[in-house]
């Protein structure tokens, strides 16, 4: 999973004309991770400290001169190297104030680029294709430079790579329609020429990017047709003659609106991810420019950020930051690429789509209402980008990063942790929220586990409310809540986690059944669930007038049940205790309802269900029976919209519980009554179903009647054609 974070402007871009090809000559890495050398199109070279957005030094060439190649930092000598007016190589150090007094050497051919790969001697690439080491060149600046390229060949792109001691320089050229790639190896020097395929559509290579690993050079090439190809070259090659076709494999085929990209750039971030600019976002409208991170393994879009203003098809990446000039500024955008898995890779695009189709809760709960409100607020703030919110946000992000908060959680007090987490949550945009929340939650839980006094209930509840936590992300959270007897958090988890294992469900069930009613009285459970149960109990207390004039006694009249419980007085219609009192308190019932509604698989549930004690089982069964009777008695008990268990769920649990404990229940004297009642009630239901089956059978014949018309052997009919 890759993510793009909030970017910031490093410096302005002064492009000479509106149609300038490039905004900057180049952005190159400096000695420290945090520093870059920016060479603009005109006359200046500036070194920036990126995190401070502050220039450290700047050098200008004199009027009339111009920089023709991006300045590079040579780590060997600790000097900057640049070229002015194509032929003058200038070398200077940090403490030189102007160009005037710096070292310069004039060479006798035009220089195309200077490359300084990490920890190696800078390499000078001449416009006509010759390559020299800088040191060797400076020894004799006027040495003759051979012409490698033919007349009309122009260098389009170049780079220099190093692995171990081996240094190579790669550059591509364009000659009319054809494109070539040259690979210059050193010690021994050899130059190898490849032809780049352009395919049927005469697609032009727009941008290349090379990385080296294990002695092989991975070359990514983005064509103007939107196709991204990968070629692999070896660092140490055997010497071959002639021009070979560079073998390539298609990695990505990007959607391109009108068939051709004009300017675009690609940078490889890690093995599977790459950043692109100038390629349209697959689901955004036309005319908007995006910086996108694509995963080549899964061919998915991982992250995208809209860029304002025109883009130049330039993009650099150094130490976890992307540098992209757009509009009138060079923006730095930090990114993060985590190891991708299929699930996360798919997640990104899916999330975008599912936004509109989130299940709508019909009944407003205060908790969610309040929470949604804050979300709405954040969203609104993000959308409008008022100055205030912008400043606040930048302040916050600069104040506290996730890592800092994570560190703080390890030791800080409950209050400060609560405050910090709140801040992080309000300051984080949606895409990152999942990552951040998961890390926060697991850190918090591990603190709670190690430090028994530390238990920020409110914070944990807030995290669960984001809907970004799930059980597998933070497996100890629910168990922790049970341990701390924090029933409201447990309820929240049960509501929000889609992936609770059956073992944990059973543990919850046990804990809830054992919970003291007095403990629960003070718990602040979700009001919906409690009000549902209150309504249910109220119905129960109502007079036993049956609705719809239905009396189940009639059905039972013909039964001669000899095994009726002897403890009860016969004669009265007590065979069915329809006005059974609720065996548990309202709040406990609300919690049990959450259990009933969790997703589960019977076969996985059964072994864990066996762990329940006999008393727990009896109580649970009593409660289930109560619910079942209520539902049966009063259809309106299943109020639509309220979160309540369905009859099917209740029946499932009755079956599972009976399955798991049947032998125990049969032996248990106090369960006897319960089982008898349950049996009777079920039997009466089965009879009802039988009767319904008969009605259905006779009504089904209605359908058959229709078909007989079709089975006639001969008929005369009239059809009309139009």
């Amino acid at each position, binding site marked *: 999973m890759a993510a793009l974070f909030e970017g910031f402007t490093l410096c302005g871009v002064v492009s000479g004309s509106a149609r300038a090809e490039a905004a900057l000559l180049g952005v190159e890495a400096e000695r420290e991770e945090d520093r870059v050398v920016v060479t603009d199109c005109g006359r200046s070279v500036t070194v920036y400290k990126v995190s401070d957005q502050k220039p450290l030094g700047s050098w200008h060439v004199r009027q009339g001169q111009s920089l023709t190649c991006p300045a590079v930092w040579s780590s060997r000598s600790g000097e900057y190297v640049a070229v002015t007016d194509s032929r003058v190589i200038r070398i200077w150090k940090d403490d030189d104030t102007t160009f005037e007094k710096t070292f310069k050497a004039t060479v006798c051919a035009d220089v195309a680029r200077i490359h300084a790969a990490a920890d190696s001697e800078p390499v000078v690439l001449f416009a006509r294709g010759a390559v020299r080491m800088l040191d060797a060149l400076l020894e004799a600046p006027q040495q003759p430079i051979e012409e490698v390229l033919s007349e009309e060949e122009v260098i389009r792109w170049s780079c220099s790579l190093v692995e171990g001691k081996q240094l190579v320089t790669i550059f591509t050229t364009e000659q009319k329609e054809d494109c070539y790639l040259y690979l210059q190896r050193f010690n021994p020097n050899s130059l190898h020429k490849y032809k780049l395929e352009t395919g049927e559509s005469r697609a032009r290579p727009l941008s290349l990017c090379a990385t080296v690993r294990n002695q092989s050079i991975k070359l990514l090439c983005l064509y103007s047709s939107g196709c991204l190809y990968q070629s692999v070259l070896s660092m140490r090659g055997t010497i071959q003659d002639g021009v070979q076709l560079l073998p390539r494999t298609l990695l990505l085929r990007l959607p391109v609106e009108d068939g051709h990209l004009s300017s675009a750039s690609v940078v490889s971030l890690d093995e599977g991810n790459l950043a692109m600019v100038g390629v349209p976002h697959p689901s955004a409208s036309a005319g908007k420019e995006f910086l996108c991170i694509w995963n080549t393994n899964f061919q998915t879009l991982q992250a995208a950020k809209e860029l304002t203003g025109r883009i130049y098809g330039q993009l650099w990446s150094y130490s976890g930051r992307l540098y992209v000039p757009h509009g009138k500024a060079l923006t730095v955008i930090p990114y993060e690429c985590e190891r991708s898995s299929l699930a996360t890779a798919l997640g990104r695009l899916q999330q975008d789509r599912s936004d509109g189709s989130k299940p709508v809760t019909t009944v407003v709960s205060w908790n969610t209402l309040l929470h949604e409100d804050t979300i709405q607020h954040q969203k609104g703030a993000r959308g409008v980008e008022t100055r205030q919110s912008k400043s606040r946000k930048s302040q916050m992000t600069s104040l506290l990063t996730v890592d800092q908060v994570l560190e703080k959680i390890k030791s800080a007090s409950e209050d400060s942790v609560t405050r910090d987490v709140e801040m992080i949550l309000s300051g984080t945009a949606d895409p990152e929220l999942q990552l951040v929340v998961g890390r926060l939650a697991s850190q918090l839980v591990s603190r709670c586990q190690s430090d028994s006094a530390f238990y920020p209930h409110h914070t944990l509840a807030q995290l669960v409310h984001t809907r970004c936590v799930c059980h597998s992300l933070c497996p100890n959270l629910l168990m922790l809540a049970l341990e701390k007897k924090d029933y409201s958090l447990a309820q929240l988890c049960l509501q929000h986690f889609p992936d609770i294992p059956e073992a944990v469900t059973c543990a919850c069930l046990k804990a809830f059944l054992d919970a003291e009613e007095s403990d629960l009285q003070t718990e602040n459970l979700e009001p919906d669930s409690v009000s549902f149960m209150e309504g249910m109990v109220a119905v129960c207390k109502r007079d036993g007038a049956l609705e719809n004039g239905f009396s189940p006694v009639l059905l039972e009249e013909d039964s001669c049940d000899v095994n009726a419980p002897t403890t009860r007085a016969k004669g009265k219609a007590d065979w069915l205790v329809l006005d059974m009192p609720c065996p548990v308190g309202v709040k406990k019932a609300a919690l049990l309802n959450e259990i009933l509604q969790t997703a589960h698989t019977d076969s996985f549930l059964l072994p864990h269900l066996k762990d329940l004690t006999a008393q727990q089982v009896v109580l649970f069964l009593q409660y289930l029976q109560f619910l079942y009777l209520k539902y049966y008695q009063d259809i309106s008990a299943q109020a639509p919209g309220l979160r309540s268990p369905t009859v099917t769920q209740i029946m499932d649990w009755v079956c599972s519980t009976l399955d798991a404990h049947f032998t125990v229940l049969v032996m248990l004297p106090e369960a006897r009554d319960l089982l008898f009642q349950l049996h009777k009630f079920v039997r009466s239901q089965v009879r009802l179903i039988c009767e319904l089956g008969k009605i259905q059978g006779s009504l089904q014949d209605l359908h058959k009647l229709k078909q007989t018309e079709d089975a006639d052997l001969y008929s005369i*009919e009239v059809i009309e054609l139009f």
Partner: protein
Amino acid sequence: MGEFKVHRVRFFGYMPSGIRCMSFNERAERLALGRLDGTLEIFNFKDSFYQEKVIPGNDSRSVEAVCWVAERLFTAGLNGEITEYDLENLCPKYSLDAFGGPIWTVACNAQGTHLAVGCEDGSIKLFEILPEKIRFERNLDRQKGRVLSLSWHESGTRIAAGMLDMIRIFDVQSGHATHRMLVDRGVSGMRNHECVVWCVAFLSDLTVISTDSSGKVQVWNAAMGILSSTHLVSKSDVLSLAVSKDESSFVVGTSEGTVVQFQFLANILGGDEKAWVRTKTFKPHTHDVRALAEIGTAVVSGGLDTQLVVRPLLDKVDIMSYDNVLHKIHFPHRSLVSCAQKAGMLLFQFPAQLEVWRLGESEGRGEFCLGTREKWIPFQGEDHISCSAISPCGGWLAYSTVSSLRVYRLQCDEHVSISKVPKLPKVLRSAHQLSFSDDSSKLFAASTHSMVHVISLSQSECKHLHTFKPKSGSTEPVHLLAASKDGKWLAAANRGCEIHIYNLHKLKPHCTVPIYGSCPTAMGIHPTSNNLLMVHADRQIFEYSIVEKQYTDWSRRVQREGLHKLWLERDTPVTHVTFNPRNAAQFMLHDTYMFCIIDQSLPLPDNKCQFYNQITLKSLSEQERLSHAHAFKMCTKYQHLLFLGLLDDESLVVVQRPLTDIASQLPAPVRLKKFAT
């Protein structure tokens, strides 16, 4: 457009026979199919799977195995005879008794020089294939137990034979068995039942694949005579086996109606070590899959449920097109029904009987009225009927088998009486197609060598008037005849795609329609303009003016603008053409799943417009309809159509045979455990 009174007939109890065996000819891309009643059918896979030729069966001849040798077709059956067929005259050429009891299997070597047959008495007999006949050469060592399946190694030096409980490998040179591989009898309950090796296949790398009655597919190493692997694919028999040409996959068919594909795949991706792996399972049939062929991009299967299924293997298909979608062929691609338009009578052709029915007279919408049924079994002899016809007036009836042709006189009043016409002209020995002229005064009989005999019929005698021979010298059988209403023209189409037009007044050939690459499947001559309308197997429609000897403007327009994609993608060929007497610009076509009226005066539908537009048109007003109407008026109300004709009172006759009726007459399938039964 108008209303039609429709006689909807579903009392034609046509019952196709189950498929017993098949053989695919790679070079000609033709599939030969043997049915249980001995009928042989040849399908042209190049030409939209058109059923090109049908050789009617015979009660005494069964087809147990069929085998192509280059362009020659051999069958062998339980009557102990090997038969070669004359594919031009659609009859057996000769039969040769192998003297080994019933023959279960026949196989030809890759060189095409020898035929091996497996007999009931346990012998494998080799026959040498000579240009005009076959000659017995020798027996391989005789074994105990019947030989049920045979397969040659491609070198032609070894034969694998599937027997009871074992597979033997024979050396052809010496005639001795070199290996004996015992097949396990399977689950314990079946121990005392013999295990029948239904099929064997000998691959070029000396691998033998066998399928047997205990549900196993086994792969053997014939070089060592050992078992390499066993795959249990079914609880009942595995009856058929077909190997792809490149030997990288094979398919087996079980008696549960499933077809299972095995592929020779590397154990590890990119690895060298390969093994046979069960890959796909289809269930194209409800009953035994008795015959299979793997043809490049598709699996062809047939079985007791009588349908032929061509299922594409999508991993081998590059571009989806008409040729590689699922095809199911239920009904013959020729008409088994003929209609006496003037008398309102229908003649139904069964393999060994004919039925004449008279349609009801009742007016009134949808009233039930069963036609009076005149059933009649005129039949002696063992040969099955190849073609039949009833005259438009209902007074004459003719049918032909491979060996004889008979004409009857029908008298229809209260009761129908029938009398055979004696003393037919000598030339009338057999016919591939029969047709009466519109005034019922002439009978046209398409005979051998593409000849068409013209017979005049009268109360007193039948006289041979003339015999037309095609100028091209083609000897392909004629399968369509069409006479014009005015009695002047006769068109005859043969399987070589040629259509000849003869002038009946001058008794001379008139012209030949330019040959189109696809076989004509239906044709008719327009009653007023005398234009010949032809529909081909690839569903192209042509109209040819006989008088002007050129394609009509409408035909050229159709070719220029092209037919609608949905029309070209229809699955079954058009089998009948009739003309609407009410409107000279309209004619009717039908295939198995629709009939349509084509109005030549309306614009042709282009690919963008809605093709099946009847429901849309119905909802529009009179004026709007005009702007939306196009030439093809499709009606899909009647499915499984065997015939659609127009009576003289301008009412339509529709003969349907619902597939459910056929399925209900099939024997019960192998019982399978289904959920909750």
